[in-house]
């Protein structure tokens, strides 16, 4: 063989290698999703971030299922739930099975909840606090005995952190090995874990799933940290869905890639204000002036490319509890009136911290800096990566923080605790009000008109104290090359795979 011949063969071989791509795509029942935050193990109690929960949601078999609108739940593994003041009776569907074909009974439900309630390192422990004990009265019946009324329990039962896992596995494995990614537990959700890696997680359709079988056979999650790289890969056809792209990049999308966005049903982006005595913002008049001076329309346009909505109350715009009292436009005159007689009347300086990894946070603080300059407040922007920001927040080493909080459904318990309640001293703001705590308790324990009245009082108190300043609704923007009927993002911020 001549040299030219050999070179030709070599080139052809390399060419064949380069083009022989192992492509997956929606048409063969495989979805490839690019995300930046992977679970580090399969413990739903230790994977609290949105994208981690989105993956857990597809695996977890839960007693109830969250409806995509985030407003209600339907029956999951449960056939019925009989709510009571301090006792919920759950009847399981008959012949339930885990993905390995083993039977799922009331014993598994009890073992799962006992495990969660006793796990001291479970990040969702607050969801189990109102539960006294869980008992099985027969193979298909479970009773939740409660310490206090817990009307949100059906929503809690739909969370991935309430997934039902086999009692045998709990007994056989120690707590450290229970959620080992190398040996995934049998699941009862629509998908099961086929492989769990640091850069790729593959889920396989669970043929024993009790609900409607998804048409998608395989879901491959790929870790792609850089949003621009995710966008490039969805545009190039390497993946079908690029999760969490920058709204400003939407204009770069070209067919067949389309934008998919959803506003969170429960939660907001806001400026968390340091209410402690050490900060100028302990003065409610300055807090209110900031709330009035903020241009929420501008933040929506600049930060979210108009994909979000201005936040005008403590709650997300679509929440049933929302009672708007803020304005989308700034009112500089009113803000200056509010500053009269305060330490910021003539001028003052505030420290605004934000995560360097958050593009939205970075853009928000620029707008806020401009907005507050108009009322004589100078803002020092300090950026740091997430873990450092958390430390500063815990220490109260800030005046303002461009952050946010959300929950997957329109139930108040967790959201109120994190924003205006005592948990974490109200998202690090240091805000503490016995009246607010009393109202939160009232909201959490009541239903119907009683709850409505409690929410109205709570909203009024929030408007009066204003421990934090809502800016915009939380929006998730993704790019997709598959129809929304197959894969979409919902207001719960879960990925809906069908």
């Amino acid at each position, binding site marked *: 063989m001549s040299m030219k011949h050999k070179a030709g063969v070599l080139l052809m071989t390399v060419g064949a*290698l*380069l*083009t*022989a791509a*192992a492509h997956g795509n929606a048409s063969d029942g495989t979805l490839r999703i*690019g995300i930046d935050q*992977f679970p*580090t*193990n399969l*413990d739903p109690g*230790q994977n*609290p*971030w949105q994208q981690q929960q989105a993956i857990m949601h597809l695996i977890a078999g839960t007693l109830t299922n969250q409806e995509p609108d985030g407003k209600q739940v339907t029956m999951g593994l449960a056939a019925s739930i009989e709510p009571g003041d301090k006792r919920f009776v759950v009847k399981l569907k008959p012949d339930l099975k885990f993905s390995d074909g083993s039977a799922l009974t009331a014993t598994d439900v009890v073992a799962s909840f006992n495990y969660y309630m006793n796990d*001291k*390192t*479970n*990040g969702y*422990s*607050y969801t189990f606090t109102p539960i006294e004990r869980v008992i099985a009265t027969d193979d298909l019946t479970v009773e939740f005995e409660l310490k206090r009324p817990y009307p949100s329990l059906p929503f809690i039962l739909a969370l991935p952190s309430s997934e039902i896992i086999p009692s045998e596995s709990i007994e056989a494995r120690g707590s*450290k*090995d229970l*959620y*080992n*990614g*190398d040996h995934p537990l049998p699941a009862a959700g629509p998908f099961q874990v086929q492989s769990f890696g*640091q*850069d*790729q997680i593959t889920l396989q359709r669970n043929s024993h799933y009790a609900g409607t079988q998804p048409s998608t056979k395989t879901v491959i999650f*790929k*870790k*792609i*940290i*850089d949003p*621009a*790289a*995710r966008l*490039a*890969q969805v*545009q*190039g*056809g*390497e*993946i079908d869905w690029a999760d969490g792209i920058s709204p400003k990049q939407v204009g770069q999308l070209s067919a067949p890639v389309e934008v998919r966005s959803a506003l969170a049903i429960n939660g907001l982006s806001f400026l968390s204000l340091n209410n402690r005595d050490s900060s100028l913002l302990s003065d409610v008049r300055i807090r209110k002036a900031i709330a009035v001076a903020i241009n929420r329309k501008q933040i929506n346009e600049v930060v979210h490319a108009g994909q979000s909505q201005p936040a005008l109350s403590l709650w997300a715009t679509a929440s049933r509890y929302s009672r708007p009292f803020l304005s989308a436009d700034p009112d500089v005159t009113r803000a200056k009136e509010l500053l009269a007689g305060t330490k910021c009347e003539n001028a003052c300086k505030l420290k605004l911290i934000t995560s360097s*990894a958050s593009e939205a946070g970075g853009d928000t603080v620029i707008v806020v800096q401009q907005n507050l300059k108009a009322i004589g407040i100078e803002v020092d922007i300090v950026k*740091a*990566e*997430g*873990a*450092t920001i*958390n*430390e*500063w*927040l*815990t220490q109260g080493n800030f005046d303002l923080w461009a952050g946010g*909080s959300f929950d997957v459904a329109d139930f108040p318990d*967790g959201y109120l605790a*994190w924003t205006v309640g005592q*948990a*974490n001293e109200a998202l*690090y703001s240091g805000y503490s009000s016995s009246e607010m705590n009393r109202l939160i308790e009232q909201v959490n324990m009541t239903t119907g008109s009683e709850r409505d009245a409690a929410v109205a009082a709570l909203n009024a108190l929030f408007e009066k104290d204003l421990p934090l300043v809502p800016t915009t609704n939380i929006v998730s923007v993704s790019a997709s090359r598959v129809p929304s009927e197959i894969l979409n993002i919902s207001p719960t911020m879960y990925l809906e795979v069908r």
Partner: protein
Amino acid sequence: MLVVRTTFARALQIVIVGLFVTVGTNLLVRLVPGDPARAILGEKASPEVVRALRHELGLDQPVIQQIARSLGRLVQGDLGTSFGYRGQEVASLIGPGLGVTAGLAAVAIALSLVVGVPGGLWLALVRRTEADLIGRLGTTVLLALPSFMAALILLYFVSLKLGLAPAGGWAGSWPENARYVWLPALALTTYLGPLIARTVRQAALDAIGQPFVEAARARGVPRRRIVACHVLPNALLPVITLVGFNAGILVSGAVIVETVFAVPGLGSRLLQAMSTRDLPVMQGIALVTAVSIVLFNLLTDLLNIAVDPRIRRTH
């Protein structure tokens, strides 16, 4: 004897580097703010839960005790277990990433040599012509281009516009990886390739001016033979050292390029470990990288001893 002495010196270096990296990363990570337990559990977890996890991870023990424990494990060849990937050995977590980064770096080095050596030699042969001027200008521009910028430019034009390569990813096995590796490797080549070309050009020019080349020319040895037998071997000697001592820069460049092309190498491991303050993994990656660079330097020394008789003679 020289080989043994060099190997021993580098082995000693590995021990010292290991000690410094272990103590240094332990102290540095504790100096910067950020709680691993909070990073794992998220902002909504209660302080009690965070405290419980800190206890489980051993983070509530005195720093000195934690460092001593790390060193004790290291002596036994144990890099510890990850905070985030509960119960998983650090070695098993970073091993695959190390393989990927090593593969990427190897392809980048090979590409750099393939482009840089003939390129540099050619520039030497056409010295002081317009082609030489343009070539040197080109190498200067490429050297000034940060690797992430080169990666983004290649991603946009080669992948998205021309569709010649995937926009990122990794197949997970060879030879399928070839489809994914060449573009990120090319991005890394934009630094090392021009550097090699410039070095080879200069070394070749030095060799061309040497008496033995003049003598060969006077003897009527063909030009091609002079270049192949007298100029090239001398021009290649500094390349070995150059590649060896640029390993560190190549690895740090790989971290950025891996992020742009979503290559699951040490870069993505390091980024995740840093964001979650996964100290054992951060420490493991720092240690493995440092030791790899020392080993690479050892290989460079040994290669130089093998190919350059002058070094053997002076020792």
